Structure formats: C-alpha cells, structure tokens
C-alpha cells in the first residue's frame, strides 16, 4: 500500500497548500478586500500598511505563527511538487533500479531545497 499512502499524502498536501496559500494571498495581495470588510489586523499584522515592505515582512516572519505557516507551506509544496514530478518521471522508467535512483535524487534535491527555504524563517525567529 506504499503508493496509496504516498498518493493520499499528495491529496492531503494539495488541500493544505490551498489553505496556507490562501492565507498568504489574503495577507500579501488581498489586503484591500480585508479592509473592505472592516478587518484591521490579520494574524496580528496591521493591514493598512504595505505588506511587502521589508521591515514589515521581517516583523511578520519573527512571529511563530507566520514562520510556522511559511515552513509548513514550503514542506507541503515541496512534497506535492516533487512527488508529482517523481510520478511523471517513473512513467518513463522501466527498471526497479532506475526507479530507486529517481526516488533517491528527488529526495536529496527536495531536502536541499527544504534546508535552503527553512533557513530564512528560522534565522529570523532566533
């Protein structure tokens, strides 16, 4: 049932990406809509200010909630993307050896991307 588990996680991460990406989009790009509905702060951030200003981004990232959202979004997106890529590549491989090699490369590249991506929010938190 290994592939079923992998695909089930693919499904779950797809849903979680939609939720977390939704939070990111509302925070970064749809602040005018929040203002229209009378919301003044979103996750403790004043929406009246431009969210793309570096100092505000830094302040936001120093909150555990936002750092958690970013890291979780990165993990889910990396899993979803690399597992999807693995599935596509495995369609073209015929031997079990090649399949293992593809999986190993995908895991290594994914971990490197994760380490690079997680570095910034963790550095800002500490």
């Amino acid at each position, binding site marked *: 049932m290994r*592939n*079923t*588990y992998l*695909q089930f996680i693919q499904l779950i991460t797809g849903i979680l990406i939609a939720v977390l990406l939704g939070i990111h989009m509302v925070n970064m790009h749809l602040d005018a809509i929040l203002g229209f509905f009378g919301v003044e702060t979103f996750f403790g951030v004043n929406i009246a200010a431009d969210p793309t200003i570096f100092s505000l981004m830094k302040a936001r990232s120093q909150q555990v909630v936002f750092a958690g959202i970013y890291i979780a979004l990165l993990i889910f997106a990396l899993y979803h993307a690399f597992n999807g890529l693995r*599935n596509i590549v*495995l*369609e*073209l491989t*015929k031997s079990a050896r090649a*399949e293992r090699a593809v999986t190993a490369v995908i895991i290594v590249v994914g971990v490197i991307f994760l380490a690079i991506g997680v570095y910034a929010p963790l550095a800002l938190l500490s």
Partner: protein
Amino acid sequence: MTEQSKHETKFTEIKFKVQRYDPEKDEKPHFQDFTVPYREGITVLDGLLYIKENLDSSLAFRTSCRMGICGSCAMLVNDYPHLACHTQIEEFHTDKLTVKPLPNLPIIKDLVPDLSTFFNNHSSIKPYIIRCDKEEMEQPTAEYAQTPKELDTFLQFTYCIKCGICVAACPTSASDKLFLGPQALAQCYRYCADSRDDGCNERASTVDGQHGIWHCHFAGACSEACPKGLDPALAIQLMKRRLVSKAVGSDKKKQPAAIVKLPATDTKPKVPVPEFTVKGK
C-alpha cells in the same frame, strides 16, 4: 441517422488506406490503398472482408462474431479506436478511411495487435471470485447470495468484452508500457466491488504497484472510447477510493456474501413435470 447525414452520404466507393506490416519482410509499417464499393450500411469490417476476399488475401486482421460481442476486430479507424464490425462507414462522413492496428500494443501482422501483455495484465488482477473458504470455492455446493442493489455496484463493468480499445485510447498506456491499463484496473474494481468476493487485499498489492492504479491521470479517454459504453475511468476512481479507505482504515469491514441455503429436498415442484413422450427402447 439524421435526414441530413443520409443526404451527405452519396459515395459509390470507399478508399481504404490500410496499414500493412509483416515483421518477416518489412522493416517498418507502410500503407496500402484499396478501393471498396460502397453500399448502405456497410461496416469497416465489411470493407476489410471485401478486400481480403477480392483484392488481397494476405491482409491480416482479427474478426469473429460480427456483432460487437467478441471484441476481436478492434482497430484504429481514422485515428480513433473502433470495433470494425460495429462501425458503419457512414459515421465518418467521408469516403476515405485510414485503418491501422490498435496503438500501444506490439503488432503481429498488419491489423493484428499482440494482446498477450493485455491479457497478462488482466490475469494479474485475479479476475475471478476469491473466497476464504477454498473448499467451497473449488467445489461449490450452492450459489452465493447477492441482492440486485449489490449487483448494481459493478454490473456495467461485467460487460467488458476485452477488446483493448480502452488501452489503445489511454494516454498513460502510450507513455508507460508497464502500466496495467484501464481494462485490468476496471476489472479489479469489478471483482473487489462484488459482494461475493473476499480477495480485494490480494489484488491491492498488484494494482498499488509502481505502474499501477496511481499512474492513471483520469484523462477519461478509456470511457470515451469504450464501444460497450462502460466507464472504466469511474471504476478506476472508485478503486482508488477503496485503496485509500483501506490504507487509512476507514473501509467498512464486510463479510462476503453467504451461501444460499438449498431448498428442502422434499419440496414438490409448483408446476407438475410432464411425462416423457419419447420412451426409451
């Protein structure tokens, strides 16, 4: 057929462009043109039979029942998979037909594809009722009970004629030669959904493999092309749901259907059995 299409079809002859390939003589497939006289209601198979009987007896193709039941004459007509016996030439609204063997399968000769991989995939999912009670399975003493509602859950998939058209239409089968294919996967669901069956776990290990059910992209081409109107894509999705339910432990544990009790032996028939009129010597 509509009144308009009746008027459109005014051909006297049909140009058949048939793919020929003899692995013993040819390096690669090539096309040969034939002209077949048109008559109302002529099918693609009728045209091929005319060619074989009158123009070139070396043309190879499979055919048997001529009524869309045996699934032998599946082939690519004007780049879409059809049953040749079930497809009238009028449907194409053209007097030019290109006939090729089913794609995604090796060619034995001309229009004859090698279906051994196709049938091996079908066999791999154990397309028969599997029960824990081996003794009863091997030497049945009675029938297993099944309600019409239980039958409805898989009935349409029992109509599969194993023609290979779904595999020919499947984009995943085109790119992944080891893919089980929509026919085998749909039949896997057909048996797993059968209330008399208890072998879903055995089949799960096969369809959950690397070139199994999760490589289906749900293009739906199999359902679109199926000449019997089945929906293999639906069966594959339902099978995926079964596998996920099993993996996360949310599937309903159901006992397979019980054996129907035999009627009492002293029951008299409702209609009296007449005496034999022919007496033995």
